[in-house]
């Protein structure tokens, strides 16, 4: 998903340690929640659940990742998607279909006892629904972590905030953030150091891409980078069949974007999507303030309603520098 620019971005990725990243990070909430839901599962693909069968994988992810971030000096703000643009409908329909198919394949794999296949299909069936979003927002509120409701795409809002200097970087697995103009994109941050990719467990490190350096390296403008993406395909249009990032880069550099579109995609008008990347709906109505976690509230929610072990919750809260029995200054102000 997102946009397939990996081939031309490889040389501009800078791999770094989590310790090297400081400052405010605007996290693409749907992207992060989707990762938590697809990765944090039992070996046969069953997500973490409480006694009532409510999924808790995303809450585990938020709690421990946030604690990790704060401990390392990163201040997270989660950006939630709003209404998607109309031209994303086809992609959304396709994703729904893939999820449904994967859900069925998961059941079949379990029935025949193929555990590896079950995990793979279960991961692909992960769904960020209203329940996931509501409980995620509730937990963030209790942890004292701000979140922002984007009017449209979360990545666009994150890019806007990074451009304004409200945050130091945008966090997402998708390269779309760069098309939306985020000066800095950090990938592999919301996943842990070890991650399963196509059945294998590999170690991933955070990687940083600086938009200005990328454009400089490729010798294109941001508008031209968007043209490259339009040719290779985005969430909003499949692009030209058979054209990958390298070919698209060549075409755009040679000034052949318009003629290629005219020839290969006669029915496609790229103007509205281009405009969407350049000036997406965003809001300045947000308030980034971090507060101390509501320790009792977090324990009541996670241990009380979602069957988390109180010791694990307290361990995470301690990383947020709240020690048991330590009072806060609130009551004296």
């Amino acid at each position, binding site marked *: 998903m997102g946009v397939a620019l990996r081939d031309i971005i490889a040389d501009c990725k800078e791999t770094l340690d989590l310790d090297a990243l400081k400052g405010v990070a605007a996290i693409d909430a749907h992207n992060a929640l989707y990762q938590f839901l697809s990765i944090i599962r039992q070996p046969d693909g069953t997500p973490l659940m409480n006694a009532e069968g409510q999924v808790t994988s995303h809450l585990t992810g938020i709690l421990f990742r946030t604690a990790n971030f704060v401990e390392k000096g990163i201040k997270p703000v989660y950006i939630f998607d709003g209404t998607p643009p109309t031209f994303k409908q086809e992609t959304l329909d396709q994703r729904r279909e893939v999820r449904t198919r994967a859900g069925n394949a998961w059941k079949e794999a379990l029935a025949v006892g193929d555990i590896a296949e079950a995990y793979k299909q279960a991961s692909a069936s992960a769904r960020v629904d209203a329940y996931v979003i509501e409980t995620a927002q509730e937990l963030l509120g209790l942890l004292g972590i701000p979140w922002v409701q984007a009017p449209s795409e979360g990545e666009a809002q994150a890019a806007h905030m990074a451009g*304004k200097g*409200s945050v130091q970087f945008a966090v997402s697995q998708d390269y779309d953030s760069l098309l939306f103009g985020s000066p800095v994109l950090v990938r592999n941050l919301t996943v842990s150091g070890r991650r399963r990719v196509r059945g294998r467990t590999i170690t991933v490190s955070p990687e940083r891409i600086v938009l200005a350096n990328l454009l400089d390296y490729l010798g294109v403008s941001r508008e031209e980078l968007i043209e490259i993406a339009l040719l290779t395909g985005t969430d909003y249009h499949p692009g030209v069949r058979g054209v990958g990032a390298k070919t698209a880069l060549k075409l755009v550099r040679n000034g052949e974007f318009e003629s290629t579109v005219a020839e290969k995609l006669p029915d496609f008008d790229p103007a509205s999507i281009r405009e969407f990347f350049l000036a997406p709906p965003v809001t300045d109505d947000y308030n980034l*303030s971090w*507060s101390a976690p509501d320790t009792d509230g977090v324990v009541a929610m996670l241990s009380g309603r979602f069957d988390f072990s109180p010791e694990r919750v307290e361990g995470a809260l301690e990383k*947020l520098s*709240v*020690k048991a029995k*330590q009072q806060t*200054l609130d009551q*004296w102000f």
Partner: protein
Amino acid sequence: MLKATIDAEIFRESIDAIAALVTECRLHTEEDMLVTRAVDTANVAMVSLELKSTAFDAYSATAGELGLDIAKMKNILGMMGRGDALTLNLLDEERKLELAFKGYKYSITLLDASTIRKDPSPPTIELPGKAVISGSALNNAIKAAAVISDKIALGIDPDAMTFYMEAEGDTDHIKLALGEDELVALNPVGARSLFSLDYLKDMGKVMAKADEVEVNLGVDHPVKFAFDIADGNGRVEYLLAPRIEAD
């Protein structure tokens, strides 16, 4: 607007006092002083700092607010020595602070102040017990307690006329009681509260340099430490919330 020159050592002292608790803060420039008040991320401790224009060799400023990366400042100031003249110049439009010393010129990008926690309002707490003690004695007591425990009780015994510090480890115990002779001043009102040594250790390092620290205490209340910096041209106050005493 801010344009000022100050002995690097004095400025470092001020930044270190803030850095003991927070990694970033809103620093307010006023016509006759620099002021900040910040709480740590867990809302357990607060630092207030005033640095008067008289602490500077030259000072000119208008009312304003800047978001300062304290951790970065601390590292930069660590390179300077006593007696080095440090010039601060705020470049408003570029949101940068220029630090010049000994031919070096740092240009530090300021943080967006709106992303930093708002200054807490000054708390109104009655802390009737008061002891004044040398900063080095206070820091030594904190270090001694940290050897056996992660928390320390601070109190005043009005009958014995002492200010005392007491720490309980899993198996060990330490108590230090200081009478009037060993204190600069004592207001003998009964007080006792328990505090986390994690916080006190960081504060203690800063307070160790102060000749006198005023300690204000109550019963299961926060503690307030107040002391001068910059030869009396500045003042720092720490406020620390207590821990709950027993299980």
